[in-house]
Structure formats: C-alpha cells, structure tokens
C-alpha cells in the first residue's frame, strides 16, 4: 500500500492506496472530486524527494506527499 499525505491547506487525512506507479496513483486520486482542483496545482514528493515524472515505480510502504502552492517568508 502507498500512503498519500495531503500537506498544508488541503486539510484531508492521509489515505492508503494500492498503486504500482505514480500514473496509476494519479488516476485513483482523480476519482475523488474534492481533490481534482488541488491536483492541478500541487507538486509531488515520494519519501520526501520532489519528483516530476509519472512513470516512477512505487513500492509498498512508499509515502507520497501532495504539496499545494507555497508562500514562505
């Protein structure tokens, strides 16, 4: 299972999802209508490393973080 965390203002509890690639995870997350607008504007980290490729493989125990637009300072 993949643990998905929704950071900052998304305000959604973590979920566990079965997926073998980020592409598969994307299609499962998009089934949640509440998440659609967030996914358009959010960046992604796997096990705290930022990623930019949907073909990345996932293995059980991986942690995927969804990061909304930022504004530090």
């Amino acid at each position, binding site marked *: 299972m993949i643990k998905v965390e929704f950071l900052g203002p998304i305000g959604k509890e973590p979920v566990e999802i079965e997926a073998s690639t980020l592409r598969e995870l994307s299609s499962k997350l998009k089934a949640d209508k509440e998440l659609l607008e967030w996914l358009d504007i959010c*960046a992604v980290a796997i096990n705290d490393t930022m990623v930019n490729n949907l073909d990345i493989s996932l293995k059980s125990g991986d942690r995927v*973080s969804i990061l909304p637009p930022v*504004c530090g300072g």
Partner: protein
Amino acid sequence: MELYEGSLDTKEIFGRWLDEQSNSNYGAYIPFVGTIRAEDNIDALSFDIYEPVLKAWFDSWQKKAEERGAIVKMAHAIGDVPVHTSSYVSAVFSPKRRVALELIDEFVEDFKANAPIWKYDIIDGKRIYAIDRSNQMDGAGLLS
C-alpha cells in the same frame, strides 16, 4: 536551518550567526529580514511547514553556496506571527561581496518559489489560506 514557534528574535539570530563566523575570514555578510506588513485588515500571518522537504531544499542550497565558497543561513517561524514582527530571516556569508549579493537574491527568490511553507491570513480569528499570493512549486500539476 532553524525553525521557531511564533515571531523570530531577529537580533539574537543575526548576532549569533555573526559571532559563529567571526573567525571564518568571510569578507561579506548579508542578512535579509522578512517582516509582516499590516495590510488587508490582517492581525497576523500564520505558517505551516513541511520540514523534511524544506531541509532537503535548504541542504541543496548549502551545497550550491559551498561551491562558490559561501554559506547560507535561514530561520523561519511556524504558527502565528503578528504584524510588524519577523517570520523569516536568511543570510549569506562569502569571502567577497559580489558572490554574497548574487546568492542572497537567488536564495530568497527560490525560497519564495519552492520552500514547502504555507501562508494563512489571520483575520478576526479566522485562518485563511493565502492562495492568491502562493506559488505553484516546480513540477506542480504532475498528478492532474
């Protein structure tokens, strides 16, 4: 990298950083202070931070600075920060001024673009995500 609950004690932080490097032979020290402005009826700003990715982001900048003979420093507040107090400070030490001037610009701008920190306005006790002033991080929209 330092994180604090609430407003930063800027004088203590800058003084300590200066003392720590007093014998390092850096010729230039450029501090930057971010202060909460009173605007749009806010009482304070409030911040959430995702520390693991922030630490990785900061470490990558420390490496870039080291390649130029410099070091970068930063401190940020977590939670509520009232107007007219500081939520963010950073600094660059380098042997000569030119590297420090360039690096503080690049470091602070990339901080605004890619440091995983979320800002909220505090108005009448409500905490409202400042989405209009926020920036999508590199790679945003990957899962859309």
